[in-house]
């Protein structure tokens, strides 16, 4: 008998850890890892709400499926970009990619 709150808190924690990763990692791939964690936390949240609030409906699941697809696409493109940048500048440190400054 797991109350909804457990899942939500867990998801929140996972999300915040992911956020910390996004904000604090040097490596660009590390940032993407953090983003993956955040997306997973969101998915957990969605499925939990689906299961606990309206298991008869299918909206939660459909949403989560879409999130999967989006996450996959985003990772693919993001990594492609990082590889491309690495080829040019031989660096994957996020802070070095600051050409769009003033």
């Amino acid at each position: 008998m797991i109350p909804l709150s457990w899942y939500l808190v867990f998801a929140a924690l996972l999300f915040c850890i992911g956020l910390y990763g996004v904000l604090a990692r040097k490596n660009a791939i590390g940032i993407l890892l953090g983003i993956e964690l955040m997306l997973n936390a969101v998915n957990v949240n969605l499925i939990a709400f689906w299961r606990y609030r309206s298991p008869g409906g299918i909206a939660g699941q459909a949403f989560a499926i879409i999130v999967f697809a989006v996450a996959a696409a985003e990772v693919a493109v993001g990594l492609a970009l990082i590889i491309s940048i690495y080829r040019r500048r031989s660096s994957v440190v996020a802070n070095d990619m600051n050409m769009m400054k003033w």
Partner: protein
Amino acid sequence: MTVEQIIFLVVAVVTLVAAIAVVTSRNLIHSALWLILTLFGVAVFYVLLDAGFFAVIQVIVYIGAIAILFIFASMLTRRVMQDTGPQSNSNWWLGALIALLLFGGIALVLISWQGFTTLAPILTGQSGQLSQLGLALVSPDQYVLPFELASVLLVAGMIGAIFVAGDKKQ
């Protein structure tokens, strides 16, 4: 404490520790491997939530594709990162603060929400059917549009990735 709850707690702890390891590991390959563990943990959660399909999808897609992709990318960009120094940038404390604040905020909001401690409703045989999900994704009056858009997105992403990361032979 029921069995479910114990399983839940154990898996939760494992997942969270693995998540922390993801974001603090000095070695990028280690981060990716820790990520795989985290994703496994999340898959277990899906099972606990009676969404078995999602657990499978999680393993196949996330772990089987995305995590592998991360490992590939790490290896392809590895040369410069031979020396694995500290992985945190100069503003890590601000990030930590923000994350904590965010968690606090969410927690506060959730606590004041009255549906916070509901228990899981009993599932009937009709709900949770995979066919229902399948139908939902292709029915014109349900979610066919996001589905199609997601497929377009995937195609675009694929083409974009190939284009951006491909070898440009002049």
